[in-house]
């Protein structure tokens, strides 16, 4: 069973043997930062390609197929295009807030990205309040979206931002509540500890019915939090042109775009970590031979396999259903998902006792 511990330990030893303790630590911090940013960008390109391809297949098309084999470099070409574009100055917009907004959105998503356990050794931020941290940091993005809508000096962006605020804040509730169900089951908020506890069986199966309900609620609520699919009211191109990022251009728009796709990945990764065992292979108690074979597959393949499975679920939902109205959206959250999640927490507490 290969994991990245070999690589990280080697880098650690190499740095410590060549420089002082503090210097080595500093260099490692910088390296980790670079690695996270690089993986972030590469994953965004990959996700954009996957999204376009899967969307095309759902609509009986082929999708991008001109740039590179099977259109693989299409999203790289798009990125180059977006980097070369002009940043348009908006008349009577608030310049400072307008700039800050796009950065806030992407910073929130990068901070969340750092806390995801990709591998036993590839886990940059491992707090003892991991899940709490994830929820707190990912909801920072709302501030960016609201600022973007407010500072653009445009009524459509304003309406889009307000809708987005209402949607994100309300869906955060059932999202958090469904994660709390698993926290009750595991008794810890630390992500590495949660993954380790699933070595016998994933929480989805271990937690009986409450875990299953929590998983479904989490999928719906987190999907709504990424502003996509049937919940893309903040963008609603038929009503609001492009919602809160109507006025953005060039790389500033690119940040919103990147953050949107990476948020999709991040919520899928959290779902995979908390419910489907993260990098932990599939183990069935009692089947030693089967478990041994499963252990041969490297953990990061397990992690990415599960995450992309969740991403595919999100895409499937996105390209199947029509958009909701804003009152239907809030009805779904406050009258169906939230009561269900609260009852579910009680159920889980009973199960644990």
């Amino acid at each position, binding site marked *: 069973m290969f994991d990245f511990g070999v690589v990280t330990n080697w880098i650690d030893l190499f740095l410590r043997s060549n420089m002082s303790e503090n210097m080595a630590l500093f260099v490692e911090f910088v390296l980790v930062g670079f690695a996270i940013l690089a993986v972030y960008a590469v994953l965004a390109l990959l996700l954009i390609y996957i999204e376009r391809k899967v969307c095309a*297949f759902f609509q*009986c*098309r*082929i999708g991008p197929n001109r740039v590179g084999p099977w259109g693989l470099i299409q999203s790289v070409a798009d990125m180059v295009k977006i980097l070369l574009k002009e940043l348009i100055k908006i008349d009577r917009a608030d310049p400072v807030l307008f700039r800050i907004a796009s950065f806030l959105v992407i910073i929130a998503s990068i901070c969340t990205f750092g806390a995801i356990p990709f591998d036993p050794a590839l886990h940059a931020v491992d707090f003892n309040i991991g899940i709490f941290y994830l929820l707190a940091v990912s909801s920072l993005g709302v501030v960016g979206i609201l600022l973007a809508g407010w500072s653009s000096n445009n009524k459509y962006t304003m309406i889009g931002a307000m809708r987005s605020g209402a949607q994100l804040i309300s869906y955060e509730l059932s999202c958090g509540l469904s994660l709390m169900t698993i926290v009750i089951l595991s008794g810890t908020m630390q992500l590495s500890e949660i993954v380790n506890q699933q070595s016998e069986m994933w929480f989805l199966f271990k937690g009986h019915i409450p875990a299953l309900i929590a998983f479904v609620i989490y999928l719906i609520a987190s999907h709504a939090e990424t502003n996509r699919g049937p919940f893309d009211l903040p963008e609603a191109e038929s009503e609001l042109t492009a919602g809160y990022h109507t006025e953005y251009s060039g790389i500033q728009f690119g940040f919103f775009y990147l953050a949107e796709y990476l948020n999709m990945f991040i919520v899928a990764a959290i779902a995979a970590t908390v419910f489907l065992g993260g990098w932990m292979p599939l183990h069935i108690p009692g089947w030693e031979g089967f478990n041994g074979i499963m252990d041969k597959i490297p953990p990061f393949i397990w992690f990415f396999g599960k995450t992309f499975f969740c991403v595919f679920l999100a895409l499937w*939902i996105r390209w*199947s259903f029509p958009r909701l109205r804003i009152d239907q959206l809030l009805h779904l959250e406050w009258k169906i998902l939230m009561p269900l999640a609260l009852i579910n927490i009680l159920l889980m507490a009973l199960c644990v006792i």
Partner: protein
Amino acid sequence: MNYIKNIIIGIYRLMQGMYITMLNFIRPKVTEQYPENRGKVFPHERMRGQLIMPHNENNQHKCTACGICMTNCPNGTIQVISKKETDEETGKEKKVLDKYLYDLGSCTFCALCTMTCPQDAIEWSTNFEHAMYTRSKLVERLNKKGSSLIKK
């Protein structure tokens, strides 16, 4: 009770929708990738690509220059230019086809010309690669040089 029933029916309907999109996902795609499959996939034989006038091996066609196609054409795509020629057997003057001009640039492929042609002298080919650098090259002469009417 109605509330719970509604939720269950809603979930069932959503599942139906997802089932249908999944069927679409795995269905083989019908998109033709044009320059790659050039010459491998042929268009349907009834496709109206371009107007042609078939000639036989003796460079003879069926057009009698009656001009019905020209009068039927809604936007003046076809020009039938005829000339007078003396017939060898009877010695009388006879109208024969001089030039049959067809402007692809203004053709709407309505097929009124081929439908009304009494001699079936013109028909559609499936050639669809019409790109040219100038508009004037789209005007084509359909009868070949030195061609004549098929003798009956």
